[in-house]
């Protein structure tokens, strides 16, 4: 069942609604934590108010913003990747960008690097895979343009093998940190760069949305309608890969957000990317933020990796949604 044609009125309404939900979730995330602080206390003067402000502004706010930014980046990357590969089941990790990031990060951890170094190495690994894919598949001018997908998938498999190798030779003391990184973890994640990057990529993706709507149909149709198919595909690839690289560098390999959020929104809102791209960003931020709130509180004071919560709760919801839609 395809949704009705996107109209301007619905566009504003959906985005405003999602934005409101994100803001509410941010408030929730600021209010809930391992030490329970009523939000009202922030306004109190005196020592209690100061302590509450410290916790919320220095601990919870950065983590909250990081969750929103990373969720948004992953959903944006997934949405773009699905259009690029013209496959609604593509996820942002399929073309090896995140694999390159994990190899870089694990290597840095193995060598005893600081958090900053681990992040830099992850970013470098991701960029390296982007360049290698571009170098190997960039000259593909064939009609099917299949080389990008095959090159990316092969490279992802290679990075997976390298990561396993690094894990298998790592000393026990480092193993826990490495596994946590692979599962995705928002504690101590920096939000500034991720949020700025998200804003930039979203604007670029949004500007391209009408062209991407056409590209999603087919390459020959796009060509006939005057698009530069070859260039546009690489722009989309680089945009998706950079968004994915930034997300993975910030918070490790958080799974499912990039696949499930755009796909679920497709079912609910239709295919028009003018709405789907910004809605995915807001939806991704919302979902990851809620997952992180649960990760912090379910087994408090112990914290779960947000990637695990995301998978455990996100997948059943997604499957339920799929059943609902398919049954009609």
């Amino acid at each position: 069942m395809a949704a009705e044609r996107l109209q301007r009125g619905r566009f504003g309404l959906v985005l405003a609604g999602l934005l409101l939900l994100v803001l509410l979730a941010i408030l929730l995330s600021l209010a809930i934590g391992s030490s329970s602080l009523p939000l009202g206390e922030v306004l109190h003067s005196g020592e209690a108010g100061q302590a509450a402000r410290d916790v919320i502004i220095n601990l919870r706010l950065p983590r909250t913003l990081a969750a929103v930014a990373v969720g948004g980046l992953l959903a944006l990357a997934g949405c773009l990747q699905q259009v690029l590969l013209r496959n609604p089941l593509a996820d942002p990790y399929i073309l090896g960008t995140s694999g390159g990031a994990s190899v870089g990060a694990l290597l840095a951890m193995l060598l005893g690097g600081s958090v900053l170094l681990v992040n830099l190495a992850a970013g470098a690994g991701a960029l390296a895979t982007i360049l290698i894919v571009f170098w190997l598949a960039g000259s593909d001018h064939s009609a099917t343009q299949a080389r990008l997908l095959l090159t990316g998938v092969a490279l992802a498999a290679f990075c997976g093998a390298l990561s396993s190798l690094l894990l298998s030779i790592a000393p026990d003391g480092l193993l826990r940190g490495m596994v946590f990184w692979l599962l995705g973890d928002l504690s101590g994640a920096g939000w500034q760069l991720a949020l700025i990057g998200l804003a930039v990529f979203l604007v670029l993706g949004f500007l391209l949305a009408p062209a991407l709507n056409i590209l999603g149909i087919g390459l020959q149709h796009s060509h006939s309608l005057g698009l530069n198919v070859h260039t546009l595909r690489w722009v989309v690839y680089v945009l998706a890969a950079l968004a994915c690289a930034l997300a993975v560098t910030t918070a490790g390999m958080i799974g499912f957000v990039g696949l499930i959020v755009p796909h679920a929104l497709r079912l609910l809102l239709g295919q028009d990317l003018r709405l789907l791209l910004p809605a995915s960003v807001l939806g991704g931020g919302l979902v990851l933020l809620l997952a992180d709130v649960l990760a912090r509180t379910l087994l408090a004071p112990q914290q779960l990796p947000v990637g695990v919560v995301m998978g455990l709760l996100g997948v059943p919801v997604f499957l339920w949604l799929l059943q609902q839609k398919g049954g009609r």
Partner: protein
Amino acid sequence: MLVTESLSLARGARCLLTNLSITIRAGECWLVLGENGCGKSTLLATLAGWQLPAAGRIMLAGRPLDQTPRRERARQMAWLAQQDEQAFPQTVLERVLTGRFPYLARWQWESEADVALARAQLARLDLAGLAGRDLAALSGGERRRVGLATVLAQEAPLLLLDEPLSQLDVRHQQQALQVLQDCVAQGTAVLMVSHDPNHAVQIASHVLLLFGDGRYLAGPVGDVLTAAHLGELYRHPVRELQDGGRRWFMPT
């Protein structure tokens, strides 16, 4: 509208067509005939600028095709490829509206006029009742007609149509032929691939026979479309019948 100068096409080492020089003018309807694999689709893809020719030059509206800006080209020429692709669900109306893309500014919603134009194309091809349906729920012939409606919504003065009538039943085939005939009467140039020479008798002003070994035969229907030429083209004897002053071609 469209001029080819010594155009040659090849697939791998095999030469499909050599030195094709034809001129397609406004209000002409060209039918391309030939065996499977003789290069009909390759020719259309090349004329559409999707593939590069092995040799020769294509001029669109007086300008070399490879120097025509893409948007400009899309307003001059619409191409219906042989396979229709579809990765994501999309309604019939949404698909036909994509034909308006070359006329929209970078980030502009389709206007009511665009929607009305798209609906009018759907109505011409007996698709008005399907406007809200998902493309995946349509039959092959219905999807083919949606493809044709999309190309018509592009409002280009030159249409390159790769088997637009395949999979269509008798009534819808005749209806689509009538629609194309109306377009041609209004000055649109059409280059269309078909497997039925009788379509040529019905609407074509010119035919282009591709023999698949480099040779071709091009010219007005009356001169080129003969039982002898078709017999040679299809490597199967073809008979010409007369009925009510009209010519019919039948395999024997």
